[in-house]
C-alpha cells in the first residue's frame, strides 16, 4: 500500500494506507491503551480503551479498527480522551476484585499499569462486587472469573493462534464468562498456556506458578528451552533458595525470541525437571557389594579417571567408547569429542541420532544459503512439509506454519503417511504410504499428480523434512529440490541440541563441522588425533560391545538396549536413569538451565543459554570433563585454551556475571601486556576455538551475545560419504521429552489430564 500522511496530536505521521491507527501511533511512540487489541489476532473493538477523536466525525473512533487514510486528523491527548480512559477504567475496577496484593499478575498487570497511568485513583464504587469461585481447568490453567475483564485475547489466541478452539464465552452482559470446552469446567487442549500468557490481568493463572512468589522477587533470566529442537527463547523466573536458586516460572516474557509470541507446554511448564527431588546431587561409586554408594567429587573423579587411564594406557583408546548428548551445549559436546579424540585417543564417539544431519549437510554441500532458518518458516510463501507431526514434535514450527498461513496466506503442502493436525492449514495434502518417503522424490520429479504440479509451479519453496526421511531418500529429495531451484531446506531432529551434537562432531567418522577424521584439515592441530573412524552408537551400546570402558554423558541408551555388562561404565547425568543405575561411577550433572553456552536448533539457529538456577552438588558437564582430563594427567591448557591466545571479550554485558568478570579481567590484562587467564571451567574459553576450527560456526557474536538467534551455515565444502544412517526419530508428543520429560511432574500431570479426557470421550 502507498504511504499516506495523517496527523495525530499535531504530529504529522506517515504509514502505509490501511495501517491500523493504533499500530501507526505505537510506532510513532504515541501510546494508545488497549486491552482487547493484540497484534496478529482478529479485531474486537470491545474494550473501548483506544477511543480517539477523529476530526469531522461525530462519535469517537476505536484506534484498533480505524485504518489510516490521507489527510485524516486525530486527537488522542485531549481532556475528552483522558476522561474516556479514566471512566472506562473506573467501570472495570467497579467489579474487578482489588486483590492485587495476592494476585499473580500484581506488578505485571496491564490493568494496574493503565490505572496508574490514566487515573481512576479514587473508587466511586459502593456496590457489592460480583463474586464467583475460582475454577481449575487443568493442571496448568486456573480461571479466576471476577478478575477477568473479558478482552477475549485468550479465546482468540487459543482459536486463531493455536487452532485449538478450546475456549469460549458463555452467558451475556455482566454474567459473561470465559469457559473451557470440557464438561465440568475442564480444559481439553494442548495445554500450551498461551491463554495465561496473553491474559492482561490475573484471570488466567498457571498451575505451577500461582501464589508462588511476587514477580519482583524473581530474577528473570532469558535462555533457551531445554526440550525440543525448535529452540524457543524462554524467560526463567528464578528465586534464591537456601540451597541455591530455584526456577519458579518459565514464560515468554519479552517475546523477542525466535518464537515471537509462542511457547508450548514443555517450555512453559516442563522446567520443573530441574527442581525435581529425583535429581542426583552427589557422585556415586559402585562399592564392593556392587551397590552405588555416595562419594565425594574427588573420589568419583579419581576413580573414573584412574580406570579410564589404565584402560587407555593398557589397551589404547579403541577400548573406550564415548556417548554424548542431544542436550549438552555446543561447547560441551565439542569438548567431549575433543576429550575422546585427544585425551582418550578414540574415535569411538557418537550420540543417539534423531535425524540424519550428515546426509543433509552433505547433500547441500556446495550450495550456499539453502538451509532455512526457523525464522524463514514465519514468512516463506510456500512450504512443503514431508512427514512428521510438527504440532506434537515441533510446536514452534507448527505455530509459525499456522501463523504464516493465517496472516500471510502462505501455501502449505503436506506429504505424510498419516493425517496430521496441520492438514487443516494445508492447501494440498498428499497421503503417502508409510515407506513412501523413499519414492517421494521420484513422485515429485515426475510431477504428474496435481500435488506435484502445484508445488512445481510455486515460485519459491521451503521444504521441511521430518526425521522420517533419511539416507538416500533424503539426499534424493534435496537433489530434486536443488534441481527445481529457489528452494531452501530444513531437517527436523528431536532435542534442544540434536543439531549441535551432530555439528560438534559426536560422530565416529566426522569431526566438528562434518570434517572427516581421515582428512582432518583444520583439526590437524589436535594432538594424537586417531584418523580411522570409530564405533558408532549401536556398536557401543550393544550387549557385546567388547568395550572395556564407556563414558556416557547425558544419554540413556539402557532405556532401549541392554548394555555390555562387562564394560566399566561412567555416566554423567541429572538423574539415576536406567543407564546411570548400571554405572560404576555416576557424576551428577547440571541441567541446561544451570549453565551457560550455546545451542543449535534443528534449523541451525545458534542461541545462548544462560545459567539461571543452581543446584548444590552438581557440576556442569564441561567442568566434569575438564576435571576428568586433569585427573588423567592431560594438559588442560591444550584441551581448553584458556589464557593462551587473544581474548574476545564483551566486557560481560551479555555472558552472565561470572563469565563477564573473567572476561573483563582478561581484556584488561591483555591490554596491559599481561597474561590473561580465563578459567578452564568457563565454556566460553572454547568459544574462540570453535569459531576458528568448526566450519559454519564463525558466527555474529554481537547478536549471539545479545541473545539473538544467529543462523549457522552448513559447511560450504564437505567431502565425505555419509555413513548408513542409524536414525531413531524420537516421536515425542506435546507432553513427553525423552528421558528428561519423565522427570517433569508438570508434563506427567498434563499428559494424564489429556489421556484421561480422551479415554473418557472414547468410552462415551
Amino acid at each position, binding site marked *: 500500500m502507498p504511504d499516506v500522511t495523517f496527523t495525530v496530536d499535531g504530529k504529522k505521521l506517515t504509514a502505509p494506507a490501511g495501517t491500523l491507527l493504533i499500530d501507526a501511533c505505537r510506532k510513532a511512540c504515541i501510546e494508545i491503551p488497549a486491552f482487547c487489541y493484540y497484534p496478529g489476532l482478529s479485531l474486537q473493538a470491545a474494550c473501548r480503551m483506544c477511543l480517539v477523536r477523529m476530526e469531522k466525525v461525530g462519535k469517537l473512533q476505536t484506534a484498533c479498527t480505524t485504518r489510516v487514510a490521507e489527510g485524516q486528523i486525530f486527537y488522542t491527548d485531549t481532556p475528552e480522551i483522558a476522561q474516556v480512559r479514566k471512566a472506562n477504567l473506573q467501570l472495570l475496577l467497579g467489579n474487578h476484585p482489588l486483590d492485587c496484593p495476592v494476585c499473580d499478575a500484581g506488578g505485571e498487570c496491564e490493568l494496574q499499569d493503565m490505572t496508574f497511568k490514566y487515573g481512576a485513583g479514587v473508587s466511586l464504587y459502593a456496590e457489592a462486587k460480583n463474586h464467583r469461585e475460582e475454577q481449575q481447568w487443568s493442571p496448568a490453567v486456573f480461571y479466576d472469573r471476577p478478575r477477568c475483564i473479558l478482552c477475549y485475547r485468550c479465546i482468540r489466541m487459543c482459536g486463531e493462534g493455536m487452532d485449538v478452539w478450546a475456549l469460549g464465552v*458463555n452467558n451475556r452482559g455482566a454474567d459473561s464468562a470465559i*469457559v473451557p470446552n470440557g464438561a465440568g469446567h475442564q480444559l481439553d487442549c494442548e495445554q500450551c498456556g498461551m491463554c495465561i500468557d496473553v491474559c492482561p490481568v490475573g484471570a488466567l493463572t498457571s498451575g505451577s506458578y500461582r501464589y508462588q512468589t511476587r514477580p519482583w522477587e524473581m530474577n528473570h533470566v532469558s535462555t533457551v528451552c531445554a526440550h525440543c529442537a525448535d529452540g524457543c527463547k524462554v524467560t526463567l523466573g528464578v528465586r534464591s533458595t537456601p540451597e541455591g536458586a530455584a526456577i519458579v516460572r518459565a514464560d515468554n516474557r519479552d517475546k523477542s525470541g525466535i518464537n515471537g509470541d509462542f511457547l508450548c507446554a514443555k517450555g512453559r511448564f516442563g522446567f520443573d525437571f530441574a527442581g525435581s527431588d529425583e535429581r542426583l546431587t552427589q557422585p556415586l561409586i559402585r562399592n564392593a557389594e556392587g551397590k552405588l554408594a555416595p562419594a565425594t567429587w574427588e573420589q568419583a573423579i579419581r576413580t573414573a579417571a584412574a580406570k579410564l587411564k589404565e584402560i587407555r594406557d593398557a589397551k589404547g583408546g579403541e577400548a573406550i567408547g564415548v556417548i554424548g548428548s542431544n542436550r549438552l551445549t555446543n561447547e560441551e559436546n565439542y569438548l567431549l569429542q575433543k576429550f575422546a579424540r585427544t585425551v582418550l585417543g578414540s574415535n569411538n564417539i557418537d550420540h543417539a541420532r534423531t535425524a540424519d544431519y550428515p546426509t543433509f549437510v552433505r547433500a547441500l554441500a556446495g550450495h550456499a544459503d539453502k538451509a532455512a532458518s526457523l525464522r524463514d518458516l514465519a514468512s516463506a510463501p510456500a512450504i512443503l512439509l514431508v512427514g512428521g507431526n510438527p504440532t506434537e514434535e515441533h510446536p514452534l514450527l507448527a505455530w509459525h506454519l499456522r501463523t504464516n498461513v493465517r496472516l500471510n496466506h502462505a501455501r502449505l503442502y503436506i506429504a505424510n503417511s498419516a493425517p496430521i493436525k496441520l492438514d487443516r492449514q494445508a492447501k494440498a495434502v498428499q497421503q503417502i504410504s508409510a515407506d513412501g518417503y523413499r519414492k517421494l522424490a521420484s513422485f515429485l520429479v515426475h510431477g504428474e499428480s496435481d500435488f506435484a504440479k502445484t508445488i512445481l509451479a510455486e515460485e519459491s519453496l521451503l521444504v521441511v523434512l521430518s526425521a522420517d526421511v533419511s539416507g538416500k531418500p533424503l539426499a534424493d529429495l534435496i537433489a530434486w529440490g536443488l534441481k527445481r531451484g529457489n528452494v531452501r531446506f530444513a531437517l527436523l531432529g528431536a532435542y534442544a541440541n540434536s543439531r549441535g551434537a551432530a555439528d560438534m562432531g559426536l560422530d565416529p567418522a566426522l569431526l566438528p563441522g562434518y570434517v572427516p577424521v581421515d582428512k582432518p584439515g583444520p583439526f590437524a592441530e589436535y594432538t594424537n588425533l586417531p584418523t580411522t573412524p570409530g564405533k558408532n552408537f549401536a556398536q557401543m551400546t550393544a550387549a557385546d560391545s567388547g568395550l572395556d570402558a564407556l563414558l556416557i554423558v547425558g544419554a540413556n541408551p539402557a532405556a532401549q538396549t541392554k548394555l555390555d555388562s562387562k564394560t566399566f561404565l561412567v555416566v554423567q547425568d541429572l538423574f539415576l536413569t536406567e543407564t546411570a543405575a548400571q554405572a560404576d561411577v555416576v557424576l551428577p550433572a547440571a541441567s541446561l538451565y544451570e549453565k551457560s553456552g550455546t545451542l543449535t536448533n534443528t534449523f541451525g539457529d545458534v542461541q545462548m543459554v544462560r545459567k539461571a538456577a543452581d543446584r548444590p552438588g552438581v557440576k556442569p558437564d564441561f567442568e566434569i570433563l575438564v576435571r576428568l582430563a586433569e585427573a588423567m594427567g592431560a594438559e588442560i591448557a591444550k584441551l581448553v585454551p584458556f589464557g593462551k591466545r587473544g581474548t574476545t571479550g564483551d566486557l560481560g554485558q551479555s555472558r552472565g556475571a561470572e563469565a563477564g568478570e573473567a572476561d573483563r579481567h582478561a581484556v584488561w590484562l591483555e591490554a596491559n601486556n599481561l597474561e590473561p587467564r580465563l578459567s578452564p571451567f568457563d565454556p566460553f574459553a572454547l568459544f574462540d576455538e570453535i569459531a576458528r576450527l568448526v566450519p559454519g560456526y564463525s558466527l555474529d557474536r554481537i547478536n549471539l551475545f545479545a541473545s539473538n538467534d544467529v543462523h549457522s551455515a552448513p559447511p560450504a565444502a564437505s567431502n565425505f560419504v555419509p555413513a548408513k544412517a542409524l536414525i531413531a526419530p524420537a516421536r515425542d508428543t506435546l507432553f513427553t521429552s525423552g528421558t528428561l520429560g519423565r522427570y517433569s511432574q508438570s508434563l506427567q500431570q498434563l499428559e494424564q489430564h489429556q489421556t484421561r479426557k480422551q479415554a473418557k470421550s472414547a468410552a462415551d
Partner: protein
Amino acid sequence: MSAESISVFSPKLEARLDALVKKYPVKRSALIPMLLYAQDEVGYISDAVVAEVAIRIGITELEVRNAATYYSMLRFKPAGRYHVQVCTNISCMLRGGYEILDRFRQELGIEPGGVTADGMFSLEEVQCIGACCWAPAIQVNYDDHDELKPDLVPGILSSYRGKAKAEGKTPHA
C-alpha cells in the same frame, strides 16, 4: 445422524430437525431454532441436547454452549410442564405486572426460578414479551394472556391443570 443412533428426541422432532438443517444456505443457521425446538420437547437444554445438537450442526459442544447461553429463553435446568413467564417491564409494571407476579408466587408457592413440586408449573419474571399495549401480560409456554388482573390468575392456572389432565402424560417425561 444415522438412523440407528440413540437420540434424545422423539421421531417427530427428529424429522423436524432433519428438515431444519436443510432449510438454510448455511447449516449453522439452524442452531438457535434447533435448540428452542429441542427445549420445547425436552424441557431444557440438557447436556445430551447440547451433544446431539453439536453433532447435527457439525460444530463443537463448546460452540453450542457459547451460543445457547447467550439467549435468555434457553434454559439449562428443567422447567415445569407449563412455564409461566410474567412480564414486569415498564409498560406492564405501570399496569400491575408486579401484582400479577406476586399473585403467581402465592398461588404456586414458588419464587421466580422455581418449579412446583408436582413439576406442573415453573415461574419466571421476564423482560418484555411484546404485548406492551395489552399489559399486564404473561406467556405460559407460548400462549399469551393479555390485560390480566390478579384475580384472573387462579383461573389461568386451573385451565392449564385441566389441560394437563386431558392430555395425559407430561411431554417432558
